[in-house]
């Protein structure tokens, strides 16, 4: 016992040192090890099955989890009579191949030599052995697994279900062990039989889902073979997104060894899902803690697992049926906002949408119609704020509505003041406006399209403003006005140099133009034929 405990303690330490890893590793390990167990475990499923037969999915999931844990415990130390599982959760994320391999060895020393035998065979299990964690559970009273969330278990289950296909055949009586587990090792290699079993189990599990997730049940059940109409758009949407991600990341998920530990990161693995996945993985991790949402997540992840199972079967079928579902479930009112469909998964959903614009509730977010609309509105606003950021100089680093609005207001103000100032400046110009104007226009037209520029002009303009107005300043009353107007553009001028540099190309033309115009004016105003001007103007 002491040696075992020592071993467990060492294991603990090693696990603690290890980085967070795939909980699927744990699950695959779990299933791998548990499947090798002999009779004593079988009694558990039946009892668990009864448990599963209960209403609450959460409890059933817990029981499934604890069931798994118990198997671990038994597997780890057959001498153990009680089931200790409390610390499993603590170690669930502390996997590393190192600890796993060593754990394998340790397990092997226990009753798991057989496991060791086939564990290395499976590439998944090799990297995903969770048994050492099970070893670390000190003998103690059985307690419910204290997962960070129940959904973590489901995710692991889902992952395992997809990744352990290689070991499937080697596992004895998988159906006996997992009639009610609901999670089935379904690998890419063995989709025929395992998928069926998986589906059957899935259905069973689905049937156990409670009121809160009845729609999930429908979703899950229908997802397998025939799609039924999903009454609730909310769960549909939240799951659909995860489903989408699952599909996308199947290949990634197949390479299990490098996967993240959390179910939350699960969706984050999928490269195709730029911001939504990242946001949702971040949000998903938080939401994992919440049971109520976790239920939906669980089912969604389970569904994701089933989805993976169906990958080889026919992903397009899923997609089409899923799209039908998207269509059936009415979104939050007609055309509430931008439809945030997963581009990869539902490219054809747009024509099916009809009048509604489907807004998908992101994972971990409320799916109330009001909040959906709110979110759409907020996203619209943030989109436009980003555009404004590009427009207003010096706003690239600014975040937050208030500051952005401040900058925008300042910019608009400065532009308006510039207009006023320029109009004042022009007003001071001599009444020989027309001739000059015509000349200017004509020259500009002749010079070509890109004749007006900003930044150099601005700088030039400011220099001139500094120099010229004093010369122009007439009576004091007006002078005050000019100065008053002048200060504003000067302050705004600080920002002006950041004005789009694309116009810099034109600036040389303009400056040249302006100068040539100024130079030409005193020389003679007959430089241009009058009919030319008439034609142009």
């Amino acid at each position, binding site marked *: 016992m002491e040696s075992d405990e020592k071993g467990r303690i060492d294991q603990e330490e090693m696990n603690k040192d290890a980085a967070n890893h795939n909980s699927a590793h744990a699950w695959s390990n779990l299933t791998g090890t548990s499947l090798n167990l002999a009779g004593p475990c079988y009694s558990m499923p039946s009892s668990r099955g009864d448990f599963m037969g209960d209403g609450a999915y959460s409890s059933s999931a817990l029981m499934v989890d604890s069931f798994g844990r118990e198997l671990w415990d038994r597997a780890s130390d057959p001498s153990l009579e009680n089931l200790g599982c409390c610390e499993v959760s603590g170690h669930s994320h502390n996997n590393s191949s190192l600890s796993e391999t060593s754990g394998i060895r340790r397990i092997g020393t226990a009753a798991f030599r057989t496991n060791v035998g086939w564990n290395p065979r499976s590439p998944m299990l090799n990297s995903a052995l969770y048994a050492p964690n099970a070893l670390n559970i000190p003998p103690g009273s059985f307690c419910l697994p204290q997962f960070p969330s129940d959904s973590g278990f489901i995710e692991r289950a889902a992952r395992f279900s997809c990744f352990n296909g290689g070991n499937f055949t080697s596992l004895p009586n998988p159906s006996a062990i997992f009639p009610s587990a609901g999670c089935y090792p379904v690998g890419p290699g063995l989709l025929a039989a395992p998928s069926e079993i998986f589906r059957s189990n899935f259905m069973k599990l689905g049937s156990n889902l409670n009121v809160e997730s009845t729609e999930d049940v429908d979703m899950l059940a229908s997802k397998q073979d025939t799609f039924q109409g999903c009454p609730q758009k909310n769960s549909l949407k939240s799951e659909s997104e995860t489903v989408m991600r699952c599909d996308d990341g199947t290949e990634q998920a197949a390479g299990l060894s490098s996967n993240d530990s959390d179910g939350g990161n699960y969706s984050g693995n999928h490269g195709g899902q730029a911001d939504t996945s990242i946001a949702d993985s971040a949000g998903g991790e938080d939401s994992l803690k919440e049971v109520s949402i976790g239920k939906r997540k669980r089912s969604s992840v389970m569904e994701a697992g089933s989805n993976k199972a169906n990958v080889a079967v026919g992903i397009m079928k899923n997609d089409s049926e899923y799209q039908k579902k998207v269509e059936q479930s009415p979104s939050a009112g007609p055309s509430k906002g931008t439809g945030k469909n997963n581009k990869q998964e539902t490219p054809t959903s747009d024509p099916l949408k009809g009048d509604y614009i489907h807004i998908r509730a992101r994972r971990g977010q409320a799916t109330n119609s009001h909040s959906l609309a709110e979110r759409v509105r907020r996203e619209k606003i943030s989109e436009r704020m980003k555009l404004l950021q590009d427009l207003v100089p010096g706003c690239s680093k600014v975040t937050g509505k208030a500051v952005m609005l401040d900058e925008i207001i300042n910019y*608009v103000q400065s532009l308006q003041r510039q207009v006023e100032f320029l109009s004042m400046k022009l007003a001071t110009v001599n009444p020989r406006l027309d001739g000059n104007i015509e000349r200017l226009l004509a020259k500009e037209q002749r010079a070509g399209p890109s004749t007006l*520029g900003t930044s150099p002009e601005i700088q030039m303009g400011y220099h001139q403003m500094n120099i010229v107005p004093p010369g122009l300043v007439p009576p004091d009353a007006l002078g005050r006005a000019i100065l008053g107007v002048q200060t504003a553009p000067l302050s705004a001028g600080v920002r002006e140099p950041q004005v789009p540099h694309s116009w810099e190309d034109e600036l040389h033309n303009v400056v040249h133009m302006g100068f040539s115009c100024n130079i030409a004016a005193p020389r003679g105003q007959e430089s241009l034929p009058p009919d030319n001007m008439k034609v142009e103007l």
Partner: protein
Amino acid sequence: MMHNPSKVRQKIMKKWIMGLRSCSSSHENLSLSERRWIIKLSADLALASVRNGSRRWSRAIIEEASRNPDNKGLIQRMLGSGCDYRSPCLIPREGRSDGNGAGHVTKSMWVATSSKKIVKRCRRARRSNGRAPRRNEAASIAKRLVKKRTQLLKDFVPGGQDMDDVSLIEETLDYIVWLRAQVDVMRALAHSLPATTSI
């Protein structure tokens, strides 16, 4: 938005000078401030007309200008006849703070505005009725700031009074772009003209 900025600027310049020229007969008699006013007004109207009333701010500019009876001649000259957005705007509507835009949408806008105000009033009343102490001070402060600034922005952008946030930002976007064009045009002219004084 502006696909060809230089062409747009040329258009604005043309229209502006057209408007200026239409008043140039009386140019010498005008005082400096009057001249300035004419210049600015014609510039604004040129901008608005080039934008062709497709944006609320342009319509608002025209409407505000047309409220002043003195400007009517200039407006008519600059914008020409047959501007459908012009005529409904010229009809002053009582009970409204400022013009809202093209006539065919004005009434609905007005209804929307008044209903929004009613809703706001109700919300305010409800809120003031013994609310629980604010838990999230930072968020409320931020909201207040944003609201203040939104209101400020509404004051600056012509025709932005009765708009919701989303469209306000769109209008601002558009307005900024075109305002820049106007500034460019004016500056080009001011830059190229000889700086001679005439008071």
